[in-house]
């Protein structure tokens, strides 16, 4: 577990803040910042760049946090939410729906560590899934472009599919470029000429 996580706690009540920070320090997390004044949320998230934000589900500033995450594309950031009631069904539903973590029993300090671990694990899985999905999408797009380029060569030069692909590959190798780049250039040129 990475011990250098930056954690931002959004909580106006100083007593609760103190308790949370103590619990986090006991659990081995020391890079913690607490924020009480909501108008500074925007700036603080941008400057402090926390890995995790702990915020109460009932806090109206959740909308602000959501906007900041949206604007700075921080799907790389976990948001852990406190709820003030025990509700296992809600917790389960939230976890399966992708909310990083819910702290059940309100702010039960002995649970913060496990909740944070859940949040971090959850956020790592999400991030990995997202990058795998992006890679798969990109591969599919690349494939389509290469197929279109092959089609153009087959039509214009009367080549078989294999020969068309070999020509693309040979050109790419001789120019020290990727097959996709050559295919993309060909497709673009063909669009301009058509």
């Amino acid at each position, binding site marked *: 577990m990475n011990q250098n996580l930056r954690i931002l706690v959004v909580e106006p009540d100083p007593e609760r803040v103190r308790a949370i920070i103590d619990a986090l320090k006991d659990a081995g997390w020391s890079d913690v910042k607490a924020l009480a004044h*909501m*108008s500074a949320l*925007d700036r603080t998230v941008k400057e402090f760049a926390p890995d995790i934000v702990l915020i109460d*589900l*009932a*806090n*109206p*500033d*959740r*909308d*602000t946090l*959501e*906007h*900041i995450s*949206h604007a700075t594309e921080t799907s790389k950031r976990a948001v852990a939410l406190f709820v003030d009631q025990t509700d296992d069904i*809600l917790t389960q*539903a*939230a976890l399966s*729906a*992708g*909310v990083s973590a819910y702290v059940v029993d309100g702010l039960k300090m002995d649970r913060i560590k496990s909740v944070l671990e859940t949040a971090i694990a959850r956020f790592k899985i999400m991030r990995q899934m997202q990058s795998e999905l992006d890679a798969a999408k990109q591969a599919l797009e690349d494939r389509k472009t290469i197929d279109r380029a092959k089609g153009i060569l087959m039509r214009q030069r009367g080549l078989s599919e294999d020969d068309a692909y070999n020509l693309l590959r040979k050109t790419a190798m001789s120019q020290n470029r990727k097959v996709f780049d050559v295919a993309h250039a060909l497709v673009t040129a063909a669009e301009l000429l058509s």
Partner: protein
Amino acid sequence: MSQTVLNCGYVPLVDCAPLVIAKELGFAGEEGLALNLVRQPSWSALRDMLALGHLDAAQMLSPMPVAMSIGLGGLPARVDTLMVLSVNGTVFGVSNDVAADIGTVPFGDANALLSALSTRKGAKLRVGVPFHYSMHRLLLSYWTSTAPNLQIEEITVPPPRMADAVADGFVDAFWVGEPWGSVAVGQNVAQLMMTGKDVWQFAPEKVLAARHDWVEANGDASAQLMRAVYKASAWLDAQKNTPLAVEILARSEHLSMSPDLIDPALSGDIVTKQNTAPTPVGRFLQFHKHAATFPWRSQAAWIASQLGADVAGIEKAKACFRADLYRQNLAGIGADMPGASEKEEGALHFETAVASTRGHIILSPDAFFDGRIFDFS
């Protein structure tokens, strides 16, 4: 008769009135519904509670179901818009400093205000909006997109904190729903410059939304809810009921606000600057007249296109505005409805009669400030 219990989420703003009236005046009870109104602290909390099944239905900002349907922001869920709850009702205001900078601009002149703000020297204009997926934000970006010299920074601020955000210099301007614009004027920290209607004359503001699978599984309850809200909206729009409506809203536990704060939105008499007489704004906030509750699929398409959706996204958005259910569930109670479910958005400059199921229906002007027309058919 046993009553169906229905949990409906809302955010305490004046335009949650149709839900409060449906409950408090017994329209919901007459339909056999025990309407349980559940206050939510933020739009994202409301959205999550609906998506996770802890609310059956909810008041939402009109772009929220569209954004959710095309997979933008937050929890993925298929959410339907059953009907529109309110049209217009938002205000744009600037801090006293900015007001002094730009000099006199007539109230409600979107073009003049835009050029005055564009020629203003200084850094970006920081504008507070309540939520990223809100009509406020879409109108702001639509309005300012034609002024390349005007640099805007959009900042999300919970509406009850908007006046403080202006006072602290955290934002220079804001676009917010009532009563929070009037509150900023009351604290003498800002001046109102125009209303949302000055950018788009007929902008769907709040909608009644529910999860798609819940609607499919609870046909009766959705119909009961829609009829109750429709009757409440008709009651609210009758001018003679306005004083009583203000009274009921102020007394209900759902809106913790004094009558003074609720009155401007419902009466349309808006104080734009401290120590001046109220300016009467026609059609400031509409609940019922001019088919206000009808979920036009073209409104969904406009929202989706402003959110940057492609053709497939626009189709998904149109499908989530359930004009079909509206027709099916409200025809029986004599609701008059337009013949088509889509229209050109922005084409109407005057009140116009169009074909309807009962002959003709008068539609409100829906022009945009720049005269553009959007045809998504």
